[in-house]
């Protein structure tokens, strides 16, 4: 069935069957991916998907249901299931729908991206693969070499008259190379994500992955102890991503964050400014509005060390008596509206990596953390993660380091950042950070 007609039909029927208001959220997408192995396409994927999530007020309570079967016979199921679910909810937690507001102009859809033919895309992937294989002498094979494209369409229609939609698309390349020396194996990866194939340099991406892997060969552990450390953009971003939830209003309200009553307080070193920017030009997570129809905004969450705002959806904002920051997102059809970041990053500083290492003198340069989903406690901020990187002596990298565990606390780490680099990095998930110099971290090695 045609999308908008289907959305409107559900709304009409739900209103007839006792819902006082309701909304149909449509999420559609297309994806394309090729995986290369030894110069050949080994996997190829081309898909389309669509589904709707229904929510509405029944007898003063909010009920949810979803379906990926977009045909008339699903409408009865959606309405009945949402009714039953609503009866379990309390009236105080009723979610009121949003009638809409002014929206920023949004450019997220680039039709030219899809016009590059499949053969040409395969060629780009092959060039990236070859560059990675030849990027360093020690490269034995590739772990992954993937090229993909994605398209996403969101459309919200509700009984208050809201009727908005956007489409966005992007392309990406990812390669991970395995470097070997005898029994020792190391991995290096690199990726590109963008909206114009002309910006993609497959040779550069491939070489970067190879060099990263090769540089880690010959790694050993270090003595256990306390070290100063430069966390590179990738490593810092992975920590930031693991702990991003502490900045969500709903987590603070529920006691799952230690930032309660800290607004206006110093929660990070004064060199740290943390932004959540839904409108960032070319940002992977840029959107004109969130899943509740609230317009996207650019916010400083931490401004020069001071906590300026938490991130809110409409429900958590109401509880704190503030306006939604446009961070109410559904993590897919099945999920209710929760809080999520948009482009979430530590603003870049002025120092180059060399200057940061020089400022540190002796310490560790950490390039990767592993085991983030297990070794972090999102509530207490504690983390204990295996890491790899390099030993730095007198401001110079002297040798690669592995088999170490770094333990610390994220809240304490934010306050202990001495300097922020100029090299802002974004991970594919739209979270980012430049390299940062941290005063001290606990390292378990030998």
């Amino acid at each position, binding site marked *: 069935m045609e999308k908008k007609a289907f959305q409107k039909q559900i709304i009409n029927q739900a209103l007839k069957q006792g819902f006082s208001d309701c909304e149909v959220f449509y999420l559609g997408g297309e994806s394309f991916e090729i995986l290369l192995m030894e110069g050949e396409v080994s996997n*190829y994927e081309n898909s389309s998907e669509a589904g709707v999530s229904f929510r509405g007020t029944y007898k003063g309570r909010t009920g949810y249901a979803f379906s990926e079967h977009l045909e008339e016979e699903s409408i009865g199921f959606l309405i009945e299931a949402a009714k039953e679910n609503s009866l379990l909810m309390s009236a105080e937690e009723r979610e009121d729908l949003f009638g809409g507001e002014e929206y920023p102009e949004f450019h997220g859809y680039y039709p030219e991206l899809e016009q590059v033919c499949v053969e040409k895309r395969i060629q780009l992937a092959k060039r990236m693969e070859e560059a990675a294989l030849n990027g360093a002498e020690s490269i034995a094979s590739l772990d992954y070499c993937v090229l993909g494209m994605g398209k996403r369409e969101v459309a919200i229609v509700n009984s208050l008259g809201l009727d908005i939609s956007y489409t966005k698309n992007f392309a990406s390349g990812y390669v991970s190379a395995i470097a070997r020396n005898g029994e020792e194996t190391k991995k290096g990866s690199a990726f590109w994500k963008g909206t114009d194939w002309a910006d993609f340099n497959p040779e550069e991406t491939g070489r970067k992955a190879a060099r990263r892997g090769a540089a880690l060969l010959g790694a050993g552990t270090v003595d256990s102890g306390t070290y100063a450390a430069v966390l590179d953009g990738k490593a810092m971003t992975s920590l930031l991503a693991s702990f991003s939830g502490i900045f969500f209003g709903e987590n603070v309200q529920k006691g799952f964050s230690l930032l309660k009553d800290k607004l206006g307080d110093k929660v990070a070193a004064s060199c740290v400014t943390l932004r959540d920017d839904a409108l960032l030009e070319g940002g992977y997570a840029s959107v004109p509005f969130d899943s509740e129809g609230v317009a996207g905004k650019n916010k400083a969450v931490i401004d020069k060390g001071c906590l300026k705002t938490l991130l809110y959806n409409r429900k958590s904002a109401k509880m704190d008596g503030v306006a939604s920051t446009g961070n109410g997102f559904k993590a897919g059809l099945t999920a209710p509206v929760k809080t999520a970041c948009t482009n979430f990053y530590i603003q870049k500083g002025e120092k180059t990596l060399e200057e940061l290492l020089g400022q540190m003198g002796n310490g560790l340069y950490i390039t990767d953390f592993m*085991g983030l989903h*297990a070794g972090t406690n999102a509530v207490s901020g504690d983390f204990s993660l295996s890491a790899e990187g390099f030993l730095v002596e007198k401001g110079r990298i002297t040798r690669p380091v592995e088999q170490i565990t770094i333990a610390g606390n994220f809240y304490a780490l934010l306050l202990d950042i001495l300097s922020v680099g100029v090299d802002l990095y974004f991970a594919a998930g739209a979270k980012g950070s430049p390299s940062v110099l941290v005063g001290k971290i606990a390292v378990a090695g030998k």
Partner: protein
Amino acid sequence: MLKKNVVENTVLAALGTGADFAEIYMEETKRNTLSVVNGRVESAQSGLDYGVGIRLFFGNKAIYGFTNDTSEKNLIRIAREAAAAARGERVYALQGWRKMNFSCRNPIRIMPDEVEKRKKAEKLFLASEAAKNYSSLITQTRANCLDVVQNVFIANSEGLWAEEQRVRSRFNVEAIASSATEKQSGHLGPGGSVGFELYEQIDVEERAREAARIAVTMLGAKPCPAGRMPVVIENGFGGVIFHEACGHSLEATAVARNASVFCGKMGQQIASSVVTAIDDGTIPNGWGSAAMDDEGTPTQRNVLIENGVLRSYLVDKLNGRRMGAKSTGSSRRESYRFAPTSRMTNTFIDNGKSTPTEILGNTEFGLYAKQMGGGSVDPATGSFNFAVLEGYMIRDGKIAEPVRGATLIGKGTEVLQKIDMVGNNLARAQGMCGSISGSIPTDVGQPMIRVKEITVGGRG
């Protein structure tokens, strides 16, 4: 679920591109989730997943597409589009249909989608109450339940025609204990390929109190000392060590790409001789059990390691072609959105001969990891990392003070060789395992084991 002529025409269209194998996977899955935070319903969600995945093989090359538009026209379009990326030399024939008859491994007593949600909510309220009342230090509780009724249909150009209904239920409870400066949490999540009878098999209040006990114990714990030391890992979820450190590297997904440390090690001693490890998708009502895998191959019991010697990898059809090996009934996927690949089902280290008392008694100093958290591993390097949720120091062969914040890091190959004692109290526990074919239910398991020496990370 699909009409026979739609299936036939789609498979024929796929074979028309020159593919030597074509497969249709369809599912219709009803899901219910209910979540209670601090004694109040936070969310109640119901829904229908619905879609088709079409897969073609051209030798060792695979093409995959999925859609929710299950019209014949669209399915044929997806099958034909494959020709953009691959083309075969000849057209293979469709074999006559063979209807698979699987014996039911997971009999269900009470269909969970027929139980009133109110009744499910009552179980969660009971759990929340029990966790909260355990101690005044418990400041937050979360309880949730989920149930899934998945109807799967698989047909392929070899003539396979298979259907299965898979029913799963799981209960989760988490308790958080707080002091003025600290928060610690405890969590348990029992489940199985069962219906609402799950709640007759487990006592939700007892589980909730156990989660609360872990949180309260860890709140009073000192940071774990760092360094290399012997570690005794308790049964049940402790099996995550094997799952992460070894299981993933035995998946053909990694082996066929030559990206596993266990490549070319078949028949060799890869673990100490006290270690026997099994992946068994046939355990009745097991969380990771099913009659068939997601390619329609019957599941089986695979002995992976026998007395330390590598006996089998976990193999799916595609990687089996690449490796020249037969499917072990191990091909799994989260949903039609994912092409299937070799994965674990219910994986565990088998019982050994030592008693838990002997193992602890023989350990003068070390870490006792009573409850493990999650972990991850890089199959290329074998490096793993996982968290200890509830840990204690062992002093003079006895469990001493609790310690928090410990992580175990190392390499799978080394740790397997360093397991020097295996207990006789095998137990399994439920988890969700994420990999390239999505997040799937798997059991981990083991008896109590001792690792002679492992790097422990901590802040003490």
